[in-house]
């Protein structure tokens, strides 16, 4: 999970204040392990220092200060680069892939090409391991098998997700005239 990129993605959609970002992040990506407030503000401070987000006014009202943040052009470029780049195939990356798919949909990008590129990256890795395993001693061959079967599980998830993108988009309440619609 890349918290800075997820926050950039949420800001790519529209400006938010910190509290709002945390609520959205928790609901979409981490219902079981809420993001600490401190981490949200620290991440925003770092992103601002690096020129990826900028303050966009303060919301009036009682209680804590509600400072709005907006994404900069540099931030949007960084986010789009991260979104388009396939993730290095390794076990336990489902959360990151899921985050990318959800963010693609909420910023109005097509999620299918993203899944296609990830599928190709996974199969390329599987091809390397399949070739390696043939000449490898049994110990290393069985380890390669283990990695291959995990990649296979990821690929099944990629296919299942590709088949349900429309449903996911509806759940995220994104109008159907953006995103994956032709």
């Amino acid at each position, binding site marked *: 999970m890349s918290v800075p990129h997820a926050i950039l993605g949420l800001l790519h959609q529209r400006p938010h204040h910190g509290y709002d970002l945390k609520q959205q992040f928790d609901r979409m990506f981490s219902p079981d392990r809420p993001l600490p407030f401190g981490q949200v503000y620290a991440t925003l401070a770092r992103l601002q220092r690096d020129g990826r987000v900028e303050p966009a006014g303060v919301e009036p009202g009682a209680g804590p200060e509600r400072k709005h943040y907006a994404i900069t052009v540099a931030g949007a470029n960084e986010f789009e680069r991260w979104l388009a780049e396939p993730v290095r195939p390794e076990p336990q990356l489902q959360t990151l892939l899921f985050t990318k798919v959800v963010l693609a949909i909420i910023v109005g990008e097509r999620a299918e090409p993203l899944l*296609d590129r990830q*599928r190709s990256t*996974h*199969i390329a890795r*599987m*091809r390397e391991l*399949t070739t390696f395993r043939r000449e490898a001693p049994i110990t290393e061959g069985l380890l390669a098998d283990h990695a291959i079967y995990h990649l296979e599980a990821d*690929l099944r998830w990629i296919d299942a997700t590709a*088949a349900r993108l429309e449903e996911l988009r509806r759940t995220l309440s994104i109008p159907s005239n953006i995103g994956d619609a*032709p």
Partner: protein
Amino acid sequence: MTDIVLGAEGLVKRFGQTDALRGIDLAVERGEILAILGPSGSGKSTLLHCLAGILPADGGSVTYDGRRIDQLTEAERSALRRSAFGFVFQFGQLLPELPALENVSLPLLLGGVGRREANERSRDALASFGVAALAGALPGAMSGGEAQRVAVARALVARPRVVFADEPTGSLDSHNGERVMERFTDLVRETGTTLVVITHEPRVAAYADREVIVRDGLIAGSQRTALAVAR
């Protein structure tokens, strides 16, 4: 320069009101192993059948060795399939009333090879897949894996230029399935044969040089989109 053995441009195939293929562009290099992936109903089997000249195209072109095969008559396409192509299909591929040796020698006999030579080459083909002992066995007496090996031996025995395979291993959930795939792709590479293989299994695709994904009758990631469909 690349040596394209099999090509499709703007390939369209319709079944009644359904557009199974909506403008496929594809080029397969000589000696390449290409995997075609895609969800069921995506059009991948139809694509294979059109490339192999089993189904005529409704639009666009299909070429083999630079020659338009979509313009050939059924008889000419049939002759081309016998002389240049080999096939492995998932189900019902062996003739149940013939023993393995005769099943394997069929493509040779159809191609005009004498019975004695056909038998000899068929025995070698069976042996190369580790099923020489099944020469006299009927398909009904074989396990699924054994029948698969015999079928692959039959597809390769006449030294076709291109082999088309549709889910050739059924499943790789066994050490045997993996072995068949290894042996199959090794032989194809050794002989410089081109292989086009349809699969839903990434592990089969991992034996190929390249994979393409067919979705809704189009190659995913290609530029031809809604505009071409509307046309």
